[in-house]
């Protein structure tokens, strides 16, 4: 959807390097989420945000941090990338509880 974009779409990085993924929305939605998708696991929540500077951990938050300084941007940082963080990362937004999510197109991250 044009209302949510992720960058980059693909990235290859080396073990131990920091990586930042960006999610940008134009919908002015309050909630933003980062999920990772791995075969056999579906989507697992890494971190989410319920407003500017308001963030919380999901079920697989170890090794990840997030920041949200503006409503429209939600950044996911891998402080020191590991091979286990090779995955497809999806950002999602929602307007309120129960409205469902709108997803970005994903970022395929490979850590070598």
């Amino acid at each position, binding site marked *: 959807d044009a209302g949510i974009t992720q960058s980059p779409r693909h990235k290859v990085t080396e073990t131990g390097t920091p990586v930042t993924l960006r999610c940008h929305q134009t919908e002015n939605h309050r909630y933003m989420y980062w999920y990772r998708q791995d075969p056999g*696991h*579906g989507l697992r*929540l890494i971190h*989410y945000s319920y407003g500017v500077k308001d963030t919380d951990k999901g079920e697989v938050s170890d090794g990840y941090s997030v920041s949200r300084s503006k409503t429209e941007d939600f950044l996911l940082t891998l402080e020191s990338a590991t091979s286990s963080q090779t995955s497809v990362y999806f950002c999602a937004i929602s307007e309120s*509880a129960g409205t*469902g*999510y709108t997803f970005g*197109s994903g970022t395929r991250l490979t850590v070598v």
Partner: protein
Amino acid sequence: AQSVTQPDIHITVSEGASLELRCNYSYGATPYLFWYVQSPGQGLQLLLKYFSGDTLVQGIKGFEAEFKRSQSSFNLRKPSVHWSDAAEYFCAVGPRYGNKLVFGAGTILRVKS
């Protein structure tokens, strides 16, 4: 903690045949329920959702799902599958007074001609 189980990892159906994808959830109260579809290399698209009321909900692309409280299930159906329906399908559950969704592991649908 809430969880979602999609028992079938892969399903293959013939074009024109009917389809049912299974979803069972574990949750302490009646949750919000969703089905999403993901085409290869794409993000997830919302097919349909259940909040309350009629337990049979209609979605896009001719899909429907039925909520059965007694079975903790929310199965997705389509009367006649088209080749373009080949994709991965995810069931998700969310709390009524929160916003974090929990997803199942997904079911990959293959359509043979």
